[in-house]
C-alpha cells in the first residue's frame, strides 16, 4: 500500500479488473488492484459490483451472496471490461469512439497475468522494433527490420500519440492474405492504457483497433486485458482470440525477462538499448504526470 499511498494519479484513475466474458452472472471474481484485494461480480444482466475484500474472503468463482459484499467501489462497464477505481476517479474514462462505430466487431481475446510491472507491458506494446524478432512471420520478418521515422506528439487531451508509423508485416491480421506495408497510429490515453490503430487488410483505407488495458496488480505484477474492435466479420471468435493470444504469448517471456520490473523514468536509464521515440516520450510523459506506481525515478536508482 505504501506505493499506492504515494501516487494519487494512479489511485484516482480508472482501471480494468475483468473482461465481461470472465464474469458469469452470480459468480465472484476475485482479483487484486494496486495491491488491494477486491472482488467483482455480475449480479444480473445490467448490474456489476466491485467491492473491497481486504481479508481475501472471496474465492474465485464462489456464488455471489449478499453477506460477502464489502464496501463497494465505483464500477463502469465499457470496452468489454469492468473498470473501477480504488479512490475517487478525477475524470471520466478515456474515449474510444471506434467502439461505437457500426460494422466493427468487438472481441476480448483474454486477460493474461504477467510477472512484470504494467508500464513495461504498455511500453512493449508501443514498440515497433521487436516485431521481426519476437513475432517472426506474423507482425514482422527479416529483412524488413528497420523502423522508419515517425512522429510523436502530445495531443490536446494530453495523450501520447505516435503517427506515420509503417511496418511491412507478413500476417498483419487473421484476415490478411499476404505481406503488406501496414500503417500504425498509437495512442496512450492513460498511463496503463494504450490503443493502436493499424491498416485493416481488407479495407486499407480504414483502421483496425487493438487496445491493451493493463490492470496493475502490484508494482511488479499485472494482468494484461486485450480488447480489439476490428473490421473482420468472417473469422470465428475462437480464431480471432487465438491470433491475438498467440502474439501476446510471444511477448510474455520478453516482458518477464526484465530484471527491473518497474519502469525507470530517468532518461539516462536503459536508453542506449532502447532508443525509441515513443518509449522516450512515454517515459517523459509519465514523469510529467507525476506517476510513481510501477516506476523508478532518478532518485531511487
Amino acid at each position, binding site marked *: 500500500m505504501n506505493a499506492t499511498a504515494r501516487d494519487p494519479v494512479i489511485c484516482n484513475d480508472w482501471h480494468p479488473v475483468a473482461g465481461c466474458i470472465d464474469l458469469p452472472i452470480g459468480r465472484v471474481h476475485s482479483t487484486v488492484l494496486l495491491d488491494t484485494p477486491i472482488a467483482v461480480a455480475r449480479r444480473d444482466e445490467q448490474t456489476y459490483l466491485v467491492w473491497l475484500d481486504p481479508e481475501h474472503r472471496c*474465492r*474465485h468463482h464462489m456464488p455471489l451472496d449478499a453477506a460477502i459484499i464489502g464496501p463497494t467501489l465505483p464500477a463502469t462497464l465499457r470496452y468489454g471490461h469492468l473498470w473501477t477505481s480504488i479512490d475517487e476517479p478525477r475524470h471520466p474514462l478515456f474515449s474510444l469512439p471506434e467502439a461505437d462505430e457500426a460494422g466493427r466487431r468487438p472481441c476480448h*481475446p483474454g486477460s493474461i497475468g504477467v*510477472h512484470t510491472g504494467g508500464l513495461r507491458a504498455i511500453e512493449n506494446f508501443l514498440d515497433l522494433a521487436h516485431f521481426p524478432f519476437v513475432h517472426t512471420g506474423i507482425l514482422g520478418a527479416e529483412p524488413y527490420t528497420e523502423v522508419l521515422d515517425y512522429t510523436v506528439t502530445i495531443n490536446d487531451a494530453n495523450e501520447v500519440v505516435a503517427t506515420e508509423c509503417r511496418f511491412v508485416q507478413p500476417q498483419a491480421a487473421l484476415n490478411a492474405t499476404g505481406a503488406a506495408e501496414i500503417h500504425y497510429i498509437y495512442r496512450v490515453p492513460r498511463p496503463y492504457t494504450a490503443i493502436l490503430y493499424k491498416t485493416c487488410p481488407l479495407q486499407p483505407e480504414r483502421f483496425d483497433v487493438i487496445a491493451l488495458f493493463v490492470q496493475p496488480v502490484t508494482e511488479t505484477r499485472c494482468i494484461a486485458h486485450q480488447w480489439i474492435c476490428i473490421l473482420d466479420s468472417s473469422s470465428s471468435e*475462437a480464431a480471432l*482470440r487465438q491470433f491475438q*493470444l498467440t502474439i501476446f504469448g*510471444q511477448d510474455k*517471456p520478453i516482458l518477464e525477462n526484465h530484471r527491473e520490473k518497474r519502469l525507470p523514468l530517468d532518461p539516462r536509464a536503459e536508453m542506449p538499448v532502447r532508443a525509441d521515440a515513443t518509449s522516450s516520450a512515454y517515459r517523459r510523459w509519465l514523469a510529467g504526470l507525476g506517476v510513481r506506481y510501477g516506476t523508478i525515478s532518478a532518485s531511487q536508482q
Partner: protein
Amino acid sequence: MIRLYDYPMSGNCYKVRPLAAFLGIELALIPVDFYPGRAHRDAAFLAINPLGQIPVLEDGDLRLRDAQAILVYLAAKYDGTRTWYPSHPETMGKIGMWLAFAERITATASAARLHDAMQYDFDIERCRAEAHAALQILDEHLWFAEAGGAAWIATNDHPTIADIACFPYIMLSEEGGISREDYPAIRRWTDRVKGIKGFITMPGIFPR
C-alpha cells in the same frame, strides 16, 4: 487429414505439433477457445472428450485424448524408422515411465502457470514446491544420463517422445514463477531439444 483440437498457448497441445513436424505429418488444427471462452467445457466439446481437456486427435475413425497417448500413436504409426518410440521392451518401459512423469509436470508446473497467467484458483505455493521437486528428479536423472553418455531422457543417441512430452511445461515454468536456475542438466537438455532438426516453437518458447 489428421485433426488436432488445439489451443496455441497450451503446452499439452504443443507436444503434438513438434512430433508431427519431425515426422512430416500435416495437421489440421481445430481451434478450441480454451480461455477465455471455456469452450472445452461446452456440451459440444464434452461429446468429443468427456474429460473436457485438450488436446484431442482424430485420425480417420480413431479419436484419442491425452497428449502422451497421441505421441505414442503418432510415433508408432508414422515413424518408419521407429526412433521416436523404439520397439525395444526396456526402452518402451522407460518411455512409459517418463510419459507418466510428464503428467506430473503438467499437474504442478502447468498448474502454476494457469494460476499466474489465467487466474486459476490453485494453491500456488504447493504447485511451485511440487514442480521444483519434479524438476529436481529430472535434473538428477539427466545429470547421470549425461555422465553415462546419454543425451536424452530415455535413450542415448536419438530423442524420443519422452523428451517431447517433458519439454513444454519445463520451458514454460518461469510463467508460473518457477525458475530453472538450479537445474543445469535440464538447461543443457532443453538446449538439445531446441537443436533437433525441424524443431518448432510455441508462444512463450523461443528457438535456440
